[in-house]
């Protein structure tokens, strides 16, 4: 097959029109077609960050830049965009990020280094990221190094952030300031102008309407599973059309299913509905992955430990699905028929995710335990939406991931809790009910015993976290022994 697509993009400082297979990933394009070998392949599944690039997209005649792992980024999406690799950050002299890395001894074998430099620079370019230690850690959440032990890298990043803080703080757009501070090359200044010149085009659809190639949204899981096959197909790239922000009307929140985790968590509508969403987001994947991973993809991938799906289950989400036979609405918890089996026909796509805006006295908690806190897949995750009135639980929706063939809503436990008293003893009983609803298996994420135990702990923790005045952590801890 191997059909190509003509795209025009700004690659570093060069406006380029190329014929590429739309499913070819940017990393292969950079290294194999352009001999730009600064981006390294460490894992080709978004787990090491050695191939991190920055992608700029025109938004209201300004370019908005975000980091992405080029190993999971299909070229077909890059028409009209600015693709920046480490080569596109280089100037005659080292940037403050680069020189801090040299000075602090943050590079040894050097293989991960370009990825760190790109990620740190992306962090500086994003106005929403604080110019602090926290901001730096956020920016490099997707980067692994096997040589240094990270202290020197953190020191370098923090030094660079601190050095540039006076130039950047309070700026609406940091790009100009970064160029003036010689932290970015000048070609960024006219990137918007160049991108404006690239003629927009209609969404490219597969040539044959009967064609059933892969459907790619963020691709962060699909490319991990089928990275070797997709370049030979003509994938349907859903992200070619602009993604709309979340909307709230009549107490219902509606989200474009293609919304990335990052866009979702930063949306003011969502932040109002789920006050701790940014904290949860920190525990999900990494910044470059979250800029790509979509809510709809997370749901359709049907992984039993899908983090966002777990949260959406507790929020009582519904899916708006479109297909040849029209539109239908499916409650998220009815969407899973079995392991990786969906109540969805091949022609159908999830267009929208809806959930009722949580009421003022509905409290939400989501937690996840994985081996490593950042950029790891959960052993067990759990979310809860609990409404209590005085000492009585009015309603408690609890979801669990990693304990069954599908993401699970604990309906029996919810029924048990409805109307029950808010007390340690009720919770302990509820934990037993929950145990009967789950059937974890032993796998690489943990033994079945561990998952049972962890499920119990996480459910108990919802109550401890949400009702600290009523439920004493100490008492629960003691009772659980």
């Amino acid at each position, binding site marked *: 097959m191997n059909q190509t697509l003509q795209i025009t993009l700004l690659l570093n400082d060069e406006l380029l029109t190329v014929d590429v297979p739309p499913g070819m990933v940017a990393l292969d394009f950079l290294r194999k077609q352009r001999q730009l070998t600064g981006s390294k392949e460490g894992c*080709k599944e978004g787990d090491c960050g050695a191939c991190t690039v920055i992608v700029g997209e025109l938004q209201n005649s300004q370019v908005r830049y975000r980091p992405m792992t080029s190993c999971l980024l299909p070229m077909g999406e890059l028409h009209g965009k600015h693709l920046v690799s480490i080569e596109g950050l280089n100037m005659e002299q080292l940037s403050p990020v680069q020189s801090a890395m*040299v000075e602090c*001894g943050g590079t040894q074998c050097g*293989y991960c*280094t*370009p990825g760190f430099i790109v990620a740190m620079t992306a962090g500086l370019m994003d106005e929403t990221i604080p110019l602090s230690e926290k901001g730096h850690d956020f920016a490099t959440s997707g980067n692994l*190094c096997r040589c240094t032990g990270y202290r020197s890298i953190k020191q370098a990043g923090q030094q660079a952030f601190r050095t540039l803080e006076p130039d950047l703080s309070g700026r609406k757009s940091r790009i100009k300031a970064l160029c003036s501070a010689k932290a970015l090359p000048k070609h960024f200044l006219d990137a918007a102008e160049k991108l404006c010149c690239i003629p927009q085009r209609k969404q490219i659809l597969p040539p044959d309407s009967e064609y059933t190639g892969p459907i790619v949204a963020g691709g962060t899981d699909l490319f991990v599973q089928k990275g*070797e096959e997709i370049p030979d197909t003509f994938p349907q790239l859903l992200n070619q059309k602009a993604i709309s922000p979340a909307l709230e009307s009549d107490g219902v929140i509606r989200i474009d299913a293609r919304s990335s985790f990052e866009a979702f968590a930063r949306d003011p509508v969502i932040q109002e509905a789920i006050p701790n969403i940014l904290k949860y987001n920190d525990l999900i994947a990494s910044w470059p992955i979250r800029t790509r991973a979509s809510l709809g993809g997370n749901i359709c991938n049907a992984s039993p430990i899908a983090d966002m799906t777990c949260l959406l289950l507790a929020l009582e989400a519904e899916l708006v699905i479109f297909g040849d036979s029209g539109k239908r609405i499916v409650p998220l918890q009815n969407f899973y028929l079995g392991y990786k089996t969906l109540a969805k026909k091949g022609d159908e796509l999830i267009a929208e995710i809806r959930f009722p805006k949580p009421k003022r006295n509905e409290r939400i908690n989501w937690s996840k335990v994985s081996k490593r806190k*950042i950029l790891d897949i959960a052993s067990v995750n759990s979310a809860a939406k609990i409404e209590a009135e005085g000492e009585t639980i009015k309603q408690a929706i609890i979801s669990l991931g990693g304990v069954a063939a599908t993401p699970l809503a604990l309906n029996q436990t919810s029924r048990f809790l409805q109307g029950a008293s808010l007390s340690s003893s009720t919770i302990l009983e509820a934990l037993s009910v929950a145990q009967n609803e789950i059937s974890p298996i032993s796998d690489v994420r943990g033994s079945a015993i561990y998952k049972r135990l*962890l499920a119990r702990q996480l459910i108990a923790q919802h109550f401890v976290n949400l009702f600290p005045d009523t439920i004493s952590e100490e008492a629960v801890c003691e009772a659980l022994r």
Partner: protein
Amino acid sequence: MKHCDSQLHVTGRSEYVDDVSPPAGLLHAAVFGSPIAHGEIQSLDTSKAREIPGVIAIYTFDDIPGEAYFGAIVQDEPLFADNKVFFQGQAIALVVAETYEIARQGVKACAVNIDPLPVITCPREAFAKGELHQELRVFEKGDVDANWSKCETVVEGSIDLAGQEHLYLETNRCRSIPCEDGQLKVYSSTQSPSVTQKTIAHILGLPMNKVEVDVKRLGGGFGGKEDQATHWACMASLAAFLLQKPCQLVLSRSDDMRMTGKRHPYKQDFKIGLDSDGRILAYEVSHYQNSGAFMDLSNPVLERTCLHSTNSYAIPHVRIRAVPCRTNLPSNTAFRGFGGPQGMFPLEVAIEKVAQKLSVSPDWIQERNLARSGYVFHYGQELEDDRLHRTWQETKESFDLETRRQAIADFNKKHSSKKRGLALMPVCFGISFTKTFLNQGSSLVHVYTDGTVSVTTGGIEMGQGVSSNMIAICSRVFGIPHDRILCNSTNTSRIANISPSAASATSDLNGNATIIACREILAGMKKVAATKLKCEPEEVTIVDGRVHCSGKASELDWNTLVLESYFARVQLMAHGFYTPPNISFDPVVGWGRPFHYYTYGTCLIEATVDCIQGTYTIDTAKLVHDLGRGIIPSVDLGQVEGGLAQGIGWVTLEELAFSDDGQLLSNALSTYKCPDGDFLPDDIEVKFLENADNPGGPLGSKAVGEPPFMYGMAAFFAIRRAVEAFSPIEEEETKSPITPEQTLLKLYPNAAHSLTANATKLKK
């Protein structure tokens, strides 16, 4: 001075094997590995793969023109499976194609029919069935058996000690280019260019002088590319040689993970006995090494396990039993520490257990038993100084051990759902290859007529900074700025018979050789200078590129002197060769002086456990390390911190999971987790022992690569102490790593048991 490659690294301009512009017509290879762990090959069908347009050739065992079997210790490993397969992922065929993608397609189109044979993954089982790479070895000192009855306290236990994936960020790769007259030029990501050269020649039936191996740098090695970069270089070279076209083989991450060996897992039994004063009287340990399918380096790894089984402690009666067991896993191999960590681990567990029994702090027992100057280890070498003690004392004092201990006790009293713990880890690690003959270093130094210098040594730059060290050494010996010096790629045509870059000894051996080469050149140049300046050669020194006579600057500078020397027909290039003095070791009787010297240090780690989730944080790592007189501070510090990080990873997050039938389950970065920046503490503090020149090392330095790895073990014990503050640990077998799963199960032993019992009841 900083790491000499850092400017290239931060701009992405440093070149690794496949970053160099490809030569015209470069072919790509991919490996078809065995789908199962043990069996007899009935048939191999490559016909479908051959039909794919762009597939050029497929090679198997029968296509090897030279010797099909190879190995560093025993030649027991075939390049491609010979009728039988012994581990999942073992290479069966090589697909060569016009592109990498087509080669991968070709691999997927290969099919093999294998009659399965029983799979062994546990070394105890292998031992019971007599599946051994070598007979059981015993090291003995004193009389263990006669002393158990004299002990006040005796504790026994078993250990399941995990292996570790190297996870060099650059996977194994090689590019091989045919040259005139049947010669090959090989660019390999190897720590052992000469082993690679020799094995390629052996496989292809070529004389060694027709194979040139060149290594610019590695994207990490950590031991994983000491003996196991060879396979891929041989395969790329086989294709290049047979097709007479350049060929490149780059392993995907998952292929690299399932096809190459790792740090050896061990099963261990220990018995420790203490007298009434808390002194260890007797210690016995049995090491069942999970060696994997072929010998590889298992024998010397196990030997170092034996040598370091008493770590830093003086024990009068010792018995160490060790056996390399053949299992159906990839052949396990060198990894930073080279068996040393596995030797030290059980004794630390034993000390913890005995401390628990005596209700004392483990560091009380550790301190009482630290070896002092004059102590003779069970293999005959004497401890010649008291630096180990100095590092212990300085760690306790400069990091306020007692204050920290009190703070933790207070914290644990106050908090019901969070507990903290601390542990100390002393390290005494021997420097030298225990195979004495490998202790040789070579350096070739060129001074060009413009005054610039190039140095080539046998050392491989894999991030550890050996190139920077060589430049620093040249700079100091010549007395010229380091920016006049370039460190070249390591190349078998410039340096012959290179020892692997391993055993922490690379800078030592090659640095000393570089000093010898520089001095030889300098001697000739000084004569020229003396004639010019009308003084004696002994009076000539060079400082910052300026020639001095009796300490006074002259008008003569380095560049002029170089040119003058050239015109005077003075030799401006030299080859230095170095072997450390006074080392010898008889591996048969296990006696001698295997090490040039020891590197010492003591580390303190604190951890906090979340007693609801079972997760934990490593809060602080503080250590005092004996570096001698360091060469480049930032490079040395990087080695210490990097080793510590890998050591912490080994005992905490990094969990190799194999199924019972020998499939690697943790076969990607999504399932095998190494530490990241968030996991490792911000509060890492390294102090170097002061006034600690090491006469054996170049410029007074000490080897630094491996010893810090073992500091990481303190994390294991710190987490366990925190767990014990919540719930006493009772276990039949001590298991590493202490993942959040292990932690939670230990926090709630009763609950874990009853939940499972209930679940089983429900099923029925």
